[in-house]
């Protein structure tokens, strides 16, 4: 869903189909992705249009980088003490 909405705004139905999810399940996932700042949503009438933030995948990678870099430093300290 993130990848599909990278190239343009998509409706929840479209993204549900791409993700192989039911509409309610897709809406739940999309709500979390919007809440995490990885997607934006634009309501228009009864439709909601979702777009992926261009930096979404980079952000996921950056957070993992921070996590592992810090953890390996903690491992070094624990192993050398």
């Amino acid at each position, binding site marked *: 869903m993130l990848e599909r909405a990278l190239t343009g705004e998509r409706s929840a139905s479209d993204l549900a189909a791409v993700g192989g999810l039911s509409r309610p399940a897709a809406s739940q996932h999309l709500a979390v992705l919007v*809440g995490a700042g990885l997607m934006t949503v634009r309501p228009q009438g009864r439709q909601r249009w979702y777009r992926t933030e261009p930096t979404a995948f980079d952000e996921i990678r950056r957070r993992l980088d921070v996590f592992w870099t810090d953890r390996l430093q903690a491992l070094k300290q624990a192993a050398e003490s």
Partner: protein
Amino acid sequence: MTNLHHSEVYIAASPDHVFRFFVDPEWLPRWLGVAAELDPRPGGVFRFEVTEGEWCVGEYLDVDPPHRVSFTWGWENKTMNLSPGSSVVEVDLVTDGGGTRVTLVHRGLPDTDSLALHADGWSRYLPRLEQVARGQDPGPNPAEETPDRARNRLEAR
């Protein structure tokens, strides 16, 4: 698989000593998480508590002391949709002078659709991991937030 992360660190200790930190449930929490349940053999459980109540779960793949250990991991909480076993961490320990060079690779899911579907799990937990990594308290467990509460929280913006 998509490479999500790759890094290495030099540790002034023997590979045998460093290896133990990946397989001993008393030693893992000294650098990762707060508690662990480990059965360090292929197919054995790899499970650790990131913060209170949040468990990262997977199983060991390779266990070749003292040079190689790998395990899968995901989140135990099913609503996070990053199921146990959906990513892989591979660790290599190489003797380097009097110490050990540790290389860690974290591989993602086999295709970008899967990565996207699981990104909600990562997106919810990675900020918390980041805070834990920095020694901070990440606050209440977001997994306790029901979909209705999430929707209400988002629509209140």
